[in-house]
């Protein structure tokens, strides 16, 4: 699904893995024209990540890659060579936006920085997504998703008190950095000024996600700790519990919701004990015991039954859904988009999370094969002849 809010915007992406590719995907899904640049012969490392259809690995069939790079055109370019960097400059001269996630050390080595690139286009908006940002003592530090989650404050609060802190089940930090970069790019365009944008992935978590924690800590409020499936200082219940066919989130921040929930459970005797009168005390001191009482009832009901009860009685119950249940939720069917490729058949993945009434919607185009649009971009856009294209290929530039 592609909207047209950003129609006419030309974007060049030099991206690996999640962050810069998801940023360019957001722009592409809004109608921007995105050219994705990859290393000749190798390509984006998401191509090796998988998962692969039928568990048959192939660098054109990685699920993560196909999802993150739909709606883009693909070219290959070797930036290790002066000719490659010249071609990048020519392409940027005809674009408004450049987004990349080269490591700062690589930026230095290849002179991929705003000072050099803006010589080709002084109105260029360039976003650099790097692990720790382009300034500060950790500038040159290396990081993968778990490191960014660790420094950004995710791990500290996830897990049991006496065991190791956990991270996300699938890499997530890159998505948050991507959203920061994509909005910043459009904001810079609105301001009408070519400029460089420095986005640190770790700050996508340490800032907008976990930022308020510092002031909470100053006031000794609800510090994030590893407290298993319970959270401290909330009114009970605010946790994931077992039910007949899996797990269910049970919450009741409002008193009337808890009352209603007890009513649905048949007003059990245990709930009348005076020590359970204060629900925050119940949570902080008796949570394990109360889990047992509540689960005894929950285990008689399936996720689907509990969701129906939640809708009927307006109590906050929500099934912990596995990915098959998410994918097969009919109410989400129109978020999923399918592309057809000769080699894989139709593949579906999640499209944009917004509905924009009145917008022209065009069907998605599949992610590019490695270097698929070299001729379109280098010959038709930049004016190279077919002979020159062959020479660029033979010499490993593209």
């Amino acid at each position, binding site marked *: 699904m592609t909207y047209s*809010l950003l129609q006419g915007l030309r974007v060049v992406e030099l991206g690996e893995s999640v962050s810069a590719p998801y940023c360019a995907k957001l722009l592409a899904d809004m109608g921007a024209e995105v050219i994705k640049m990859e290393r000749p012969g190798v390509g984006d490392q998401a191509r090796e*990540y998988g*998962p692969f259809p039928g568990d048959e690995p192939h660098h054109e069939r990685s*699920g993560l890659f196909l999802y993150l790079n739909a709606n883009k055109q693909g070219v290959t370019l070797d930036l290790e060579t002066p000719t490659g960097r010249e071609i990048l400059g020519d392409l940027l001269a005809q674009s408004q936006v450049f987004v990349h996630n080269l490591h700062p050390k690589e930026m230095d080595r290849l002179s991929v920085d705003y000072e050099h690139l803006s010589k080709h286009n002084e109105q260029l908006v360039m976003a650099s997504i790097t692990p720790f*940002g382009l300034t500060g*003592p950790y500038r*040159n530090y*290396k*990081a993968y998703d*778990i*490191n960014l989650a*660790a420094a950004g*404050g995710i*791990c*500290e*609060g*996830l897990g*049991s008190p006496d065991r*190791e802190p*956990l991270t996300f089940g*699938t*890499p997530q930090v890159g998505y*948050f950095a991507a*959203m920061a970069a994509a*909005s*910043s790019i*459009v*904001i810079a*365009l*609105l301001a009408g*000024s*070519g400029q460089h*944008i*420095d*986005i640190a992935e770790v*700050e996508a978590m*340490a800032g907008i*996600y976990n*930022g*308020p*924690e*510092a*002031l909470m800590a*100053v006031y000794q409020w609800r510090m*994030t700790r590893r407290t298993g*499936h319970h959270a401290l200082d909330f009114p009970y219940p605010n946790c*994931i519990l077992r039910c007949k066919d899996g*797990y269910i989130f049970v919450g009741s*921040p409002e008193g009337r919701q808890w009352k209603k929930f007890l009513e649905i459970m048949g007003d059990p005797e245990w709930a009348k004990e005076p020590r359970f009168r204060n629900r925050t005390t119940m949570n902080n001191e008796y949570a394990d015991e109360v889990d047992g009482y509540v689960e005894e009832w929950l285990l008689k009901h399936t996720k689907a039954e509990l969701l129906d009860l939640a*809708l009927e009685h307006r109590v906050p119950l929500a099934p912990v859904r*596995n*990915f*098959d249940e*998410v994918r097969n939720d009919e*109410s989400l069917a129109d978020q999923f988009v399918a592309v057809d490729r000769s080699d894989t058949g139709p593949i579906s993945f*999640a499209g944009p*999370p*917004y*509905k*924009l009434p009145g917008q022209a919607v065009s069907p998605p185009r599949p992610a590019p094969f490695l270097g698929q649009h070299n001729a379109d971009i280098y010959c038709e856009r930049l004016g190279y002849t077919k002979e020159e294209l062959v020479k660029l290929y033979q010499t490993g530039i593209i």
Partner: protein
Amino acid sequence: MNDRVSAQENEQDQNTPEGPLSGYRVLDFGWVLAGALPGMILADMGAEVLKVETHQRMDYMRLGRPIVGDEPDPEQHPLFHNVNRGKLSITLNTTKPEAVELAKKLVAHCDVVIENFSPGVMDRIGLGYEVLSAIKPGIVMASISSNGQSGPLRDLRAYAPSIGALAGLDSTLGYDGERPLGLKHAYADISGALHSVFAVVSALRQCKQTGQGQYIDLSMLRATVATMGAGLMEYEMTGRVMGTKGNHDPVMAPYGNYPCQGEDAWVSIAVRTDEEWRGLTEGMDNPPWCDEEKFASRYSRLENRRELDDKLAEWTRQRPPEDITELLQSHGVAAIPVMGAEDRLFNPHFRARGLYSDIEHPSLGAEPIYNIMWNLERTPPSIRRHAPLMGEHNGQIFGGLLGVAEREIAQLEEEQVLW
């Protein structure tokens, strides 16, 4: 009192560079977290953001136990101070028709309207998109909700953890094969807010070019689903359903949080390439176990990752996380301590980057408030003022912007219209 506060503000404004969205005005009905964040970001970017509040139903984030004294005080909530900084506050009790009319008059002066009430509420009080776009055709209106403005889950009572559960996020959070755990923070609220900011600014660009307005229906569930990338694709490609798997990564080993010297001290280490593996072994001063065949390739390290984790933990356990970080990073290995809020507040890197600014709040004095860290180098965002006191700007907005006479404002306050 009001005069003095606004004089201070003007002074502050002069010292703060204009943001990239200076000149834009936002009518912000957003509340709690998901609804408050977009306005906060737009305010940091220089837009004038009018937070519309009412005593009739106070923003939950103004409620809670006070920091100072024993009485409830809507001006003391640390989360509120963070996510509403930079905004101006006006009170409008939309159960009164006069208040709805005033809101409409304000819309004529605004570029963006944000709201996250239950679906249907804005229509019911007479401030739906149809009405607003008739007043101002170019208006961009974002409605943020848990499960969208239509569909079978529309009216489900849902909070951030509900959405983490429904989106599949929680199904992957937990120790290997054990029960799923929830996140401590409102992942879905933040993902929803960030996706809506992107949609809003994209719509503003369209409006700038064509004059066309836009309605945005943002579902936090869909926003969370949109970033479930590899997990959803696993099912699509193989039919397998991912469950909890601890800190295991499909292509990297070692990959985890390892115990260190010190109380509850941990360091995260991740190794992808052979070059990084050599860096790690050198950093550890080449212990003999590193030469064993079972750790010789990326493949065998993944195969034997549990044993590898144990060996590595024996080494990390004898050192503080900061030392390990410095040593391993100098060998080109991704390592960083597991940090808490205070660690970040006092960390030299985050201090150098300016993660926090001290913002003076009238109720509680100087407080560390986080910056959004979207570093547009020529037109940087900044925190323009402390979170507003409730109704602090009624005079400035209804008087200054709409030209309502001072005594009329007093009367409207008396009649609980501005309330």
